[in-house]
């Protein structure tokens, strides 16, 4: 009863101090109308997002997700920094040894801006049957796509990225959702060794994906990069449960999740990556 009384007192006090003024509807609409209908062409409205999700993030996420599919090995030897990954065509025999790990990238004409699934399917098929045709492999360059004739003639991952905006943004969303799901189901206290191991294994798997994303261009986005770094720490702690099971470790993990607002930020990033219903 006493608790209810205190709850009510707190609620009333908050209601008093946080009572909303009348919203300036017309004034706000004028701003919204200008931003959403005047300044931004319909198909490019997405650019009107807050600056924290920078303009190149979507293609960067798409590029990262494309890389996650099949080029982990390639990335592990990639130079850090603002590297543009491009696909170069080389004779099949010269990459025979790399065949087992060769990425299944598709060759896209440099002049093609249209996003057609048919093109993707056709070129994927071409890549699958590439024993008869030149194969794709990855090279790394500090040259920005389109800044030289030579590069302009080469198909780039950037071009691929533009063609896969939605689906590959969803891949990153999926990673974030899986991570959030894992962290939300994290037990508050030590449970059975079997369940801890299962959780730790999932964390280890997500940790690998986190590393790949951090090394990707998507990871260069400051907001996403900070989140990925925090996730890297937390996932590493969770993954350690495999070898060291302790209730205090779990408490520390929960503390880290709370102090760093990890879950709300994962949620924000998921919403940001793909605001869909």
């Amino acid at each position, binding site marked *: 009863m006493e608790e209810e009384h205190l709850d009510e007192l707190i*609620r009333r006090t908050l209601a008093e101090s*946080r009572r909303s003024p009348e919203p300036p509807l017309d*004034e706000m609409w004028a701003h919204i109308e200008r931003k*959403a*209908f005047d300044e931004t062409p*319909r198909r490019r409205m997405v650019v009107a997002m807050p600056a924290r999700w920078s303009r190149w993030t979507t293609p960067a996420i798409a590029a990262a997700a494309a890389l996650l599919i099949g080029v982990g090995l390639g990335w592990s030897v990639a130079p850090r920094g603002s590297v543009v990954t491009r696909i170069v065509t080389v004779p099949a025999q010269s990459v025979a040894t790399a065949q087992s790990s060769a990425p299944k990238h598709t060759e896209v004409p440099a002049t093609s801006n249209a996003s057609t699934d048919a093109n993707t399917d056709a070129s994927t098929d071409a890549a699958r049957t590439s024993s008869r045709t030149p194969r794709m492999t990855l090279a790394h360059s500090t040259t920005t796509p389109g800044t030289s004739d030579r590069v302009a003639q080469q198909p780039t991952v950037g071009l691929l990225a533009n063609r896969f905006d939605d689906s590959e943004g969803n891949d990153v969303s999926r990673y974030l959702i899986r991570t959030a799901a894992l962290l939300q189901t994290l037990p508050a206290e030590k449970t059975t060794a079997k369940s801890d191991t299962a959780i730790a294994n999932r964390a280890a798997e997500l940790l690998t994906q986190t590393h790949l994303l951090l090394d990707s261009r998507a990871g260069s986005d400051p907001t996403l990069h900070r989140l990925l770094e925090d996730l890297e720490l937390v996932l590493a702690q969770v993954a350690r449960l495999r070898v060291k099971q302790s209730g205090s470790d779990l408490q520390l993990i929960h503390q880290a999740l709370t102090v760093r607002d990890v879950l709300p930020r994962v*949620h924000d990033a998921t*919403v940001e990556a793909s*605001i869909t219903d």
Partner: protein
Amino acid sequence: MNEAQLITRVLAGDRLAGRELYDAHAPRVFRLAFSMTRDEEIARECTQDTFVRAFSKLDRFRQEAAFSTWIHRIAVSTVLEALRGRRRAAARFVGIEAANDVHTQENSHDVELVSRVEKAVEELPEIYRTALIMHDLEGYTHAAIADVLSIPEGTSKTRVAQARAKLRKTLATLRD
């Protein structure tokens, strides 16, 4: 005209349809933003950003969830992001912020009570504070909070209960 039709018309560039959608949801979005921020200017900016973002991405709204849920999801995300930025800035000016806090409560019936309650609420972790404000102040159901925050309904209940428990603990002396 129902919301699905309005959305279709907005996608075709119809401003009046956009205004109609806005009128239907903006007051509640603004109230929520104000409750979460206690700052009219930030609430206004967040409401504007919410609708600009929503209209910009309307073509990605598949109408599997209610438009209201979708717009509130964007609103909460926008407000939390603004608050984090504000906290980072405030951390650099702790003294000034603390002084302002006292003076902004001048009209309150009980300056000290409000000050203590607000301080306790501000110190709650974000996930608890958000759920508490949405439920206890703005009257969202746990189901609605679950949809907006993409969490299970049970989690929403737990967060509100834990937020209240933390506040009770912090403000225990108010019972006297």
